């Protein structure tokens, strides 16, 4: 597929892949810089809050690096071992990021609950916390703006975007919490804030994972209606039946289609199967978002000696 696109949609796909890569590269640079600043700050001041946030940033950085490596691998051309190319690698990166997000969110939620039940004796100094969170907020906001443009282009980019989004939420809620603590002295605000973060991140991560699993399980892409495709095919002149219809996606948006189309004997006799193939291919690419299709046009007697038939 990778090579084929360089023919047809080449310039567009190639350009967006390059932009996504540079988006990720810049986001990594920002997050890595903040991470180093925070670690240095944590060592210098002995602040636990800084160290905890650095932990977040580190998970973020890992997620972004995985996403970047995936985009690089995905750009490799198809080989004999990988005849569909390597774009599936990006789906794995999204799987990794989805699981990482859920792991971090679950950890934050558990921490939050345990601190609500048994509040820390250690008072969190609100002012340093506020400073850390503000730095994180600015950095994450910049990274988020960079990644937002690419978020809808692939599951991988959506995963990377969500990583940063989670961190942004984290910084924002921490700011609110430290302001609340500063002005009202309401200590549980911090723990409540972590629960809010978890509640906002988990549904997004789950939805990402659901899409990832749909691709990995070879399910029909959401926007594709197999019944409608079947009826389109059956409506073509000379078509008697259609079976073994399969639609799946290498990665979101790169749909692969195959079907066995049973035709009247007259189609072969007239030498019309070439034209029927043209019409079927045209219909599919015009009416449905399918990049790669294979139609096996067969006479009725062929289907009878095929091993396994299913709709």
């Amino acid at each position, binding site marked *: 597929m990778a090579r084929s696109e360089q023919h047809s949609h080449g310039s567009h796909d190639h350009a967006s892949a390059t932009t996504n890569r540079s988006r990720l590269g810049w986001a990594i640079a920002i997050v890595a810089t903040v991470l180093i600043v925070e670690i240095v700050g944590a060592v210098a001041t002995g602040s636990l809050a800084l160290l905890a946030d650095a932990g977040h940033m580190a998970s973020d950085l890992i997620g972004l690096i995985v996403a970047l490596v995936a985009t690089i691998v995905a750009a490799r051309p198809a080989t004999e071992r990988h005849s569909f190319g390597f774009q599936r690698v990006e789906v794995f990166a999204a799987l990794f990021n989805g699981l990482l997000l859920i792991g971090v969110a679950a950890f934050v939620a558990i921490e939050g609950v345990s601190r609500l039940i048994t509040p820390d004796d250690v008072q969190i100094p609100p002012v340093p916390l506020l400073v850390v969170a503000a730095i994180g907020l600015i950095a994450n906001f910049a990274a988020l703006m960079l990644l937002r443009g690419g978020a809808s282009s692939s599951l991988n980019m959506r995963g990377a975007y969500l990583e940063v989004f989670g961190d942004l939420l984290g910084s924002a809620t921490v700011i609110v919490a430290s302001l609340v603590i500063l002005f009202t002295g309401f200590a549980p605000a911090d723990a409540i804030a972590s629960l809010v973060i978890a509640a906002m991140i988990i549904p997004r991560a789950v939805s990402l994972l659901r899409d990832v699993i749909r691709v990995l399980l070879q399910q029909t892409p959401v926007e594709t209606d*197999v019944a409608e495709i079947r009826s389109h095919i059956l409506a073509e002149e000379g078509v008697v039946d259609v079976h073994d219809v399969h639609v799946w996606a290498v990665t979101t948006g790169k749909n692969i289609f195959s079907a066995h189309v049973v035709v009247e004997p007259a189609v072969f006799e007239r030498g019309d199967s070439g034209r029927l193939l043209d019409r079927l291919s045209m219909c599919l690419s015009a009416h449905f978002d399918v990049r790669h299709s294979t139609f096996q046009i067969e006479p009725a007697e*062929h289907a009878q000696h095929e091993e396994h038939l299913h709709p």
Partner: protein
Amino acid sequence: MGNDHSHAPAGAVHTRRIAIALAITATIFGAEVFGAIITGSLALLIDAAHMLTDVFGLTMALVAARLMSRPTSAKRTWGFARAEVLAALGQATVLLAVGLFVFVEGIQRLFAPPEIASGELIIFGIIGLVANVASIAVLAGGRSANFNLRAAFLEVVNDALGSVAVIISAVVISLTGFYRADSIVAMLIGALIIPRTLKLLKETISVLLETTPTGLDLDDVRAHILGLPHVVAVHDLHASQVATNLPVISAHVVVDEKCFRDGTAPAVLDDLQKCVATHFPVSIEHSTFQLEPASHAEHEDAVHT
């Protein structure tokens, strides 16, 4: 994929046996996790993780067979065939995580061995061993001599060995107070499991990446197809595996224009399907060939080799 002894199709006769074995194994898995927590034994933990592969394998044999026989639908045109592969990936990931944990923790414990409740450990070891033997008895009764028999036997013996090792370490600890025995045994069991886990991980990931099935050389396939009568060219040749026993292939085959007029196209199609089903180490029953006249390829926008 999963465990070797889950491959055999779960016939109606076997379903009950598998269900019983699953119930035993799952119970023991729970008991061993509980045991690992109360005794502090690393060996018991890794043995429990190993047990989890059995639970998984048996569940697959029981559920996957039923799930995979469910008809395909418009939402899932391949049915649930892939579920098996994804589940195996999950299992391998968990095993690998436990394995790594055991090694990191085991090495630390060699330097500062914590106390292990060896009396309880012996009890849990014996429970594990008895359960393994019971599973063997239940499964063995239903097995005829087949391909998987040897592999299944080795797998089950392997499991029993884990329990024996746990018992030995518990005895050593209670007699000599040599607490390091637990970590050593844990790492030994880990060393047995991790290579197989990595292999499973590699296999599942390669299926999920739509890699060409092992044993199938696409160059070879292309040469065969080009060698068939009337075939002019092949492009868009793709092979992958939906699940362990479901390799699929699709290709666009350019044939002589006259095939479409004199009615030989269906015969070419038969030749193609017979070729991929019989000529290669991997027999592909599910193939889709798009026969096209040379004029078609010219206006296809996505032609590649």
